[in-house]
């Protein structure tokens, strides 16, 4: 596959941790390189994989900006640092003396599609936490507000807004599948959700397929780490509100946050880094969690929760606060 015939991807890292690139390397069966090759996707440059360095890489960027090499997908990983005082000097692209902010703006003009890889590039994310000392933002959002580094009205050459492959980090397949759909011309604005995230994964909830669902149904809750119960009531789990398919797609073979024994922190959402209370603890009013499942009427939730709590089998009540199964399910034997 050549730069003339394939789907050309340029990947740059801005004010993030590089974790989405590392997560991308977790792609397997087939591996990342085989997946891309099979889909006709060329990596024009990727910071962890490519040979070109220094002046070779700057020459490539210059050619892309000049329109000499076609740019099908511009993938930006990490928040865009606008500070100090709108100069972008908190990240000067090495060897160029220019801010990443400026490079991203120039490249976005010639890109057929522009993708924010991870919650940082999408909305600002972790780097925009606390008092946001670097004035970090996403490509087209500063948290929930549209605008960001490229502006509200930005559209790439294909007339698409920024595609936000949000997640902290993203799942490798959220990236590869989005790129493959784009390469097939099989992805339109209809495929983006309210935060411009690919609906392929964002139309699901983390709650779907959670192995703790039975505990959830009976409100049999974990109280401390390593316990088996549902983590929504006490441990700050946002799986019933978080848009992602983590528990049906799974991570690193057979994992997910909940399977790993800790709460979902809704890392695909704008502003997840500042929940307004401490993570890993469910804020409550009069003993009732404030954040209830998406689109569920509160009165019903309270009614069902108290009913199911009253009906909780002993097995779930005991296992919920144990770190291994202490009461196994029983089979009703014939004649008893």
């Amino acid at each position: 596959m050549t730069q003339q015939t394939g789907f050309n991807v340029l990947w740059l890292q801005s004010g993030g941790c590089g974790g989405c690139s590392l997560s991308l390397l977790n792609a397997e069966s087939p591996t990342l390189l085989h997946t891309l090759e099979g889909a006709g996707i060329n990596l024009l440059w990727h910071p962890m994989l490519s040979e070109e360095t220094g002046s070779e890489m700057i020459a490539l960027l210059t050619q892309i900006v000049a329109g000499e090499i076609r740019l099908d997908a511009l993938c930006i990983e990490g928040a865009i640092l606008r500070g100090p005082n709108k100069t972008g000097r908190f990240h000067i692209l090495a060897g160029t003396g220019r801010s990443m902010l400026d490079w991203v703006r120039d490249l976005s003009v010639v890109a057929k599609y522009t993708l924010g890889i991870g919650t940082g590039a999408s909305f600002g994310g972790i780097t925009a936490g606390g008092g946001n000392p670097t004035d970090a933002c996403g490509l087209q959002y500063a948290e929930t507000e549209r605008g960001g580094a490229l502006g509200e009205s930005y559209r790439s050459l294909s007339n698409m807004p920024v595609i936000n492959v949000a997640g902290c980090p993203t799942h490798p397949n959220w990236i590869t599948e989005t790129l493959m759909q784009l390469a097939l011309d099989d992805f339109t604005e209809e495929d983006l959700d309210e935060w411009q995230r690919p609906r392929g994964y964002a139309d699901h909830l983390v709650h779907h397929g959670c192995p703790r669902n039975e505990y959830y149904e009976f409100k049999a809750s974990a109280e401390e780490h390593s316990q088996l119960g549902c983590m929504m009531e006490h441990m700050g789990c946002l799986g019933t509100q978080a848009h992602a398919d983590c528990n049906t797609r799974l991570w690193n073979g057979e994992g997910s946050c909940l399977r790993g024994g800790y709460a979902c922190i809704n890392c695909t959402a704008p502003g997840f880094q500042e929940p307004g209370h401490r993570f890993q603890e469910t804020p409550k009013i009069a003993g009732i969690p404030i954040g209830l499942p998406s689109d569920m009427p509160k009165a019903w939730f309270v009614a069902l929760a108290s009913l199911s709590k009253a009906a909780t089998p002993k097995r779930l009540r005991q296992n919920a606060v144990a770190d291994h199964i202490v009461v196994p399910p029983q089979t009703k034997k014939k004649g008893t």
Partner: protein
Amino acid sequence: MSRTIVGPFNRVEGDLEVQLEIADGKVSEAWVVSPMYRGFEQILHGKDPRDALIYTPRICGICSVSQSIAAADALANAQGVERPMNGELSLNLIHACENLADHFTHFYLFFMPDFARAIYTKEPWFEAVEKRFKAVKGRAAADVMQARAEFMHLMGIMAGKWPHTLGIQPGGSARSIEATEKVRLLSIISGFRRFLEARLFGTELEAILEITNQQQLDNWRDAGDPGQSDFRRLLQLSQDLRLETLGQTTGRFMSYGVYPLDGERTFKSGVWYEGQLTELNPNKITEDISHSWMEGQADPTHPYHGVTLPNADMDSGYTWCKAPRLDGQVVEVGALARQLIDGQPLINDLVASSGSNVRNRVIARLLEIPRVLIEMEQWCRQLKPKEPFCVDSGVTRESEGFGLTEAARGSLGHWVRIKNGRILNYQIVAPTTWNFSPRDQAGVTGPLEQALVGAPVREGENEPVAVQHIVRSFDPCMVCTVH
């Protein structure tokens, strides 16, 4: 004299620029520039201390677990929490998995592709090396990515995902392991062993650890085909290109030690200089900002009282990185330091004869893989599924604590002071902060700045290939460096 500016560097984690003065075909002086600042220490100020467990792994996508371990250790230290045995074992397994995957990724994807660059076309080994290690196109890349991904299934089971787990808690691991999972973990580890033995080493892991001096290593190198063992290929390239002559530092080494178990660290901590091993005193660690784009701190300061306040207009600065010093001295950290201080015989022999250099750094990293994988097999067998993996840890209103650990690329420390149940000060000193330190008040250069001096520059080279080898031999992580 005008400076040659080299950057951006890829196949390192994060963005890096190096400025060089070149005279007589050699680098005569170097400045290392970390061109990005994000402000984690400022972000953490005022937060609930336990929220550091969400923020700090996201300093870095490649040392994510090491950051979690340092944060959890700092909180445990502040609260006086002790982990149950299963908790220690689980955290060691998760941490070792990250560190080994990093070594593996570094060797195959970051370091070796430089030998497949066009500048080496005329070398007799070029064709074979290009076929195997060429960036993206080489045969090794796809194979090693599959092996790495399968090894990372350990993370799926024990840590939920990688990077950025929240399973690492001050009191242990949030994930208890069932008996069937324990055997699954063993099979994942043995699958990785098989790959290492078949391709990386071309022999049993135990046989590699039996090599105890340079003579034996040379004999082993010459006894087989470098086409069948990537380690042997490295040794042959090292000999051919004399990689032991590249990238010398002053050779003072530090390791915090790592993988605690039952009161002992599996790798010992210490400081090594000219053959003398001394105890590490973490109270002697300071950070100097005299050449950083930082302000608010007149003199070098211990991290408990460190200030991180960026100012892009500081004329004396040339990087966002601070200059950490141990008792006023520059130290090199990483796998070489860790194994040297732990007493690994081959590494001690190599350093005794040639000091700190590109070859020794890369060999040390590769030798650590069998050593740690064998430990992992033992740790996994010791897991007791019916016993606790985590104890509860609260938070006290006034306390302080620190966590010292080793990421793949070297010593990582977190220092936290807590007041009114909130973070008053949180300071992080990362491995590459040590290695890619700028000059200090006395004008003393950091390890990479030292290592680059004398690097040969061939006629017409824009990005001297020797500089590429030296920089990558440190396995730098730039996002950690400044954070």
